[in-house]
């Protein structure tokens, strides 16, 4: 980007010229002659002309197109279940981002605060108390926890089904699991005792301290629960359900063949015209399969390149005319 630079050194000169007139009494009222006050700070004065912007467009084009191609290729390669496979459940037409829903939670209760446990926030209404006992965890989000159970079976070539091992650790954000969500009374207390005097959310079958047998995944720090508590941005969303780890490098995580998905159907979606999905996906460095970014990069890159060419033409056709027209002035 071409620029002209004018560091102004007239400042001193100016003060000399103006100051010579009235030195005596006038001096006190005379404004300071700093470059800032005289609006003569040294400055870089770039001008955006076709000539200077041209290279920028070409550079953007040259950088964006390869990135876009790279992204697209990565995105398209994702379907091969070579590496770790992620299992998601998806819901559509489910408004987790409804305002009444989003705010219906008590973060300090979830953080293990004892007083919030017995006296949850008003925001949790109408899921705040049940049978005049406080609900733990309170609020609409917790109350509507997704409670289908998904089990994946691989149908061996011999016809027998073997369970695909699903790992439920690492599906929630580390910080959520370890900092934001805390069981009341610390990590190694008796959860049943701690939650004494509270009531389970009305839609739940079992209380919060019976979500899992593993004490590291029970109560508020149950990862399924934490994942659900992170409200989705859009009405059609997916949430991470399980991980399928790659066992060894020789065979793919999910080998070619037939699979059976068994669903313990608890969660009603028909009532709001919703749909449920299960998604298996591998993840690259750029996440799941989403061609948008790649396409967008390629498009923007190409458009920039094209604009660069247009500007080049404009610059050559009109640029000289402009300059020659006004230099005689």
């Amino acid at each position, binding site marked *: 980007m071409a620029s002209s630079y004018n560091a102004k050194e007239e400042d001193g000169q100016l003060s000399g010229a103006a100051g010579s007139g009235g030195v005596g009494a006038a001096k006190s009222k005379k404004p300071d002659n700093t470059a800032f006050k005289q609006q003569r700070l040294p400055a870089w004065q770039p001008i955006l002309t076709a000539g200077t912007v041209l290279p920028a467009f070409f550079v953007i084009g040259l950088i964006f197109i390869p990135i876009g191609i790279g992204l697209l290729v990565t995105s398209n390669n994702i379907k091969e279940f070579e590496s770790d496979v992620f299992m998601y459940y998806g819901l559509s037409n489910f408004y987790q*981002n409804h305002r009444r829903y989003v705010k219906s939670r008590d973060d300090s209760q979830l953080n293990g605060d004892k007083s919030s446990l017995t006296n949850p926030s008003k925001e949790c209404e109408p899921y705040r108390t049940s049978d005049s006992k406080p609900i733990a965890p309170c609020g609409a989000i917790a109350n509507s926890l997704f409670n289908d159970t998904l089990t994946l079976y691989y149908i061996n070539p011999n016809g027998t089904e073997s369970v695909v091992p699903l790992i439920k650790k690492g599906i929630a954000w580390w910080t959520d699991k370890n900092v934001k969500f805390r069981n009341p009374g610390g990590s190694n207390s008796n959860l049943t005792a701690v939650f004494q005097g509270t009531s389970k959310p009305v839609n739940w079958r079992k209380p919060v301290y019976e979500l899992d047998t593993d004490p590291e995944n029970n109560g508020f720090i149950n990862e399924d629960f934490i994942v659900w508590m992170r409200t989705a941005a859009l009405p059609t969303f997916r949430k991470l359900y399980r991980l399928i780890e790659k066992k060894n490098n020789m065979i793919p995580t999910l080998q070619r063949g037939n699979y059976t998905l068994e669903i313990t159907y608890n969660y009603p979606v028909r009532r709001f015209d919703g749909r449920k999905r299960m998604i298996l996906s591998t993840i690259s460095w750029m996440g799941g399969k989403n061609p948008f970014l790649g396409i967008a990069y390629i498009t923007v890159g190409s458009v920039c390149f094209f604009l660069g060419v247009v500007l080049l033409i404009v610059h050559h056709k009109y640029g000289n005319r402009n300059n020659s027209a006004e230099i005689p002035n």
Partner: protein
Amino acid sequence: MDCSLLRSLINRYCAGEENWVDSRTIYIGHREPPSGTDAYIPQRYPDNRIVSSKYTFWNFVPKNLFEQFRRIANFYFLIIFLVQLIIDTPTSPVTSGLPLFFVITVTAVKQGYEDWLRHKADNAVNQCPVHIIQHGKVVRKQSRKLRVGDIVLVKEDETFPCDLIFLSSSREDGTCFVTTASLDGESSHKTYFAVQDTKAFHTEQEVDTINATIECEQPQSDLYKFVGRINIYQGQDEPIARPLGSENLLLRGATLKNTEHIFAVVIYTGMETKMALNYQSKSQKRSAVEKSMNTYLIVYLCILISKAVINTAMKYVWQSDPNRDEPFYNQKTDSERQRNTLLKVITDFLAFMVLFNYIIPVSMYVTVEMQKFLGSYFITWDDDMFDSELGEGAVVNTSDLNEELGQIEYVFTDKTGTLTENSMEFIECCVDGHVYVPDAICNGQILTGTVGMDMIDSSPGAGGQEREELFFRALCLCHTVQVKEEESVDGIKKGLQPCGKSSSVYISSSPDEVALVEGMKRLGFTYLRLKDNHMEILNRDDDIERFELMEVLTFDSVRRRMSVIVKSSTGEYYLFCKGADSSIFPRVIKGKVDQVRARVEHNAVEGLRTLCVAYKTLAQDEYESVCKQLNTAKLALNDRDKKLAEAFDVIERDLILLGATAVEDRLQDKAADTIESLHKAGMKVWVLTGDKMETAAATCYACRLFHRNTQILELTTKRTEEQSLHDALFDLSKTVLRHCGSLTRDTLSGLSHDVPDYGLIIDGATLSSVMKPTEEGSSGNYKEIFLEICRNCSAVLCCRMAPLQKAQIVKMIKTSKEHPITLAIGDGANDVSMILEAHVGIGIMGKEGRQAARNSDYAIPKFKHLKKMLLVHGHYYYIRISELVQYFFYKNVCFIFPQFLYQFFCGFSQQPLYDTAYLTLYNISFTSLPILLYSLIEQHVNMDILKRDPSLYRDIAKNSLLRWRIFIYWTLLGLFDAVVFFFGAYFLFDNTSFTSNGQMFGNWTFGTLVFTVMVFTVTLKLALDTQYWTWINHFVIWGSLLFYVVFSLLWGGIIWPFLNYQRMYYVFMQMLSSGPAWLGIILLITISLIPDLLKKVICRQLWPTSAERIQAKRQCLSVEPSTIFMLSQTSSNISF
């Protein structure tokens, strides 16, 4: 102030209608007049407390809040805040309450502090001790306890505590000197006169015996007008009535000088003093930018309301399905269910309003105010506008109009003191056709021989000699100059006597008079002093001649002359009269009129100010009848001015012409250059002067208002005598329109040198007949034709103008159909009316006092400073504030439109897209400083170039940067960017994970992504607009972005104990840990910036403005030096 006024009003009206009378009667020293005189209705007067403060301790909070919320913007934000408090709204009341609270508090603290200062000043004044006479003794009292009728004693250098009638003085002649510097800025000493019949009372005891009543009008605000009457009772006789005029009235705020002490009686107190009545605040002027801003605000308010309406309607359409309204997973509370539908609709509407209210940000007002306030310092600081002679720079009285300086289309300027120096120099005088030129250098001798350098007539005869001396004496006597003998140099010093005899200085409110008296001194007649009502003159033979000063017929601008009546030592009465030629010649019956007239005209063409001098002798009986006439006129309580004028008219008749004088008023430095620049910048310059046509025209030529090839159109009384006004107007308009019709295109393109441009000269009398509505109702026509002519003239000279006419002209142009922006510039009290009338009023810190400067919006030391003021400062302020306004709307469209779009994806539930902290801080801190600093220091073109090339000013004429087209462009750009942010994030989030560990993001990450892209785009957009990158710009632009990142890291990095939600915990970090988020952010920023960049480049290439051409030219020239050098400079600059 309000309170006491109100109180006095209540007192008046509650006391009964009959108590409210036109005049008041004051018993001097509270002494009842002898019985048998008229019974006066007692009136109640306020005490002498001055209340300039607005608030008291307990009413400060409510009153100040009330005042602040009367501003429509504040009120709007208050309503939003209250809505947030009352109903369940998506955002916490803090988001709008905090900024509002901040703004209100800062304003309240500022106003409270100012008021506290006023209280302190009031107290100091009100408690200041004064001396009053009670029972023949001097008693000290606090100033606020003064009552009407008290007799006060004022000593030298004390300030008068209220409006007083001057009873007697320590000076023998019953005069005192007063300086009214704090009232009208005139630092010269003025003489006031004690009442004739009381001036003999010199001691406290004597004064206490005065038995008199004063009748005077109720207080009015005109400082120079006062009518009253004093009735003095002596024994049982009929009272003696004497007139009281403004020369007897000592005003509060003035200071006693050169007089040991005086006695005076209180007539107006406290808030009824003339000074207090003049406190009135000036009417608020609003700039064109502010008006467009308000229009835009209304547009945005409509957008806001329609957004809220659309969303509310959509919400009810959408949730008509009960499964959407209340799905099983998201039930309402009972109270929500039971709520009335209408109430629900209103609540929803208000909630949407609250959600979108940031589109009209409170911070815009704060930023605009700050920009104006801080920006105005650049004017004050400007070294180029500092005048070392005066020791002062430009003064900004209001910062509301900074940008209006860049929009001026008409400049109305005064001549004397504005275009010219108003430092008069005596050039010559002409007695009966003999021309006398004093030596330029005074050599300390008595200058007898400095006569007749340019003899026109043959040698003067014996009578000539006599006439010549009479002429000199006339000039020495006919004036109101005072002699100041001490060395002190406060105020304006004039003509310090160089000859060293005595160091006396002549002081007068009129510089012409000083020049004349000094000229006389150089011709051998020295005016020494006024002593005991005798004027003393040192004549050529070093003898002192004494003349008793009988009457002074003071100067006024209607009569345009003044006279004195003196009695010589031989007992003869003379009347000397001097004045404008037009007012003297008709009154002359004898003398060499033709020769003098020829010389006067010759001098006028040279641009000199001419005065004619005439005299007549009065016989004793004539003098007495004159006295009688004057006294009856002076005694009149009603219409005194009119009666006086009639008396003057009768007295100043049948004069004998003596001669004429010529005084030069030099042009101000660079006046011609300034006028030329203003012309080139597309402004029309009008000179409005009280001077005569020839002098004014000569000045106009000298300062290049008219060029040699300017075709002068005259519309003067002379012409309208020959031709009817109607015909004259039509003739002129034909001449003008014939040319302009064919050449419109050329004139529009600007510099059209070959086109004969027109200059119009019009005089006051003709102008008033043009403006006067005639019987047939065709006045509108005349005015229209006249305006049409003016529109096509590059320069207009209006001569023989009365002060009020100046304001009328300004108003006429201001309200003509194009509504041009006008600027009035002047230095004297007679310019105040037009300064107040014009859009921008500029005062010159002149020699005729500071009244113009005080009433102006900006005051500059010299006329030449106008050039930089308009071409540089005005231009800069305009481009800065227009960008500020447009950018503010733009960035808030970017901010709010994604929220609007999000409603379509969250069931119209008013779910905010961004976190509360982001909502609150977006306008306050993330994006506020770059635009504020931009609007303070942006310079698209170098200021030297702006000064050198005035035509650049045309670029921004007619509010060109705030046109609808540009406003719509910015709004569309904002909408486009908002759509890019929102849908970019939408597709990125579309049903997939974009982290490498497969975990999902929630709605807050979505909002944060949009917000991050937005903050960067909006800031970088400003960076693209910035054409003047100082280290400050680098600091605030990159600093703001850095601050945003640091803040977000911090905000999400901690479980904040005082918050009841932790929704932002680690959201920002998690987002940054994802590669696609980075790529997405970069992509979206690029997409949003490209269209604007493209538009800028293409427009510059294909349709460059003249500023852009200049930039390109400069670039071409400066590309030559080595690039490496420039790069090294740049890097050093950045590292600064």
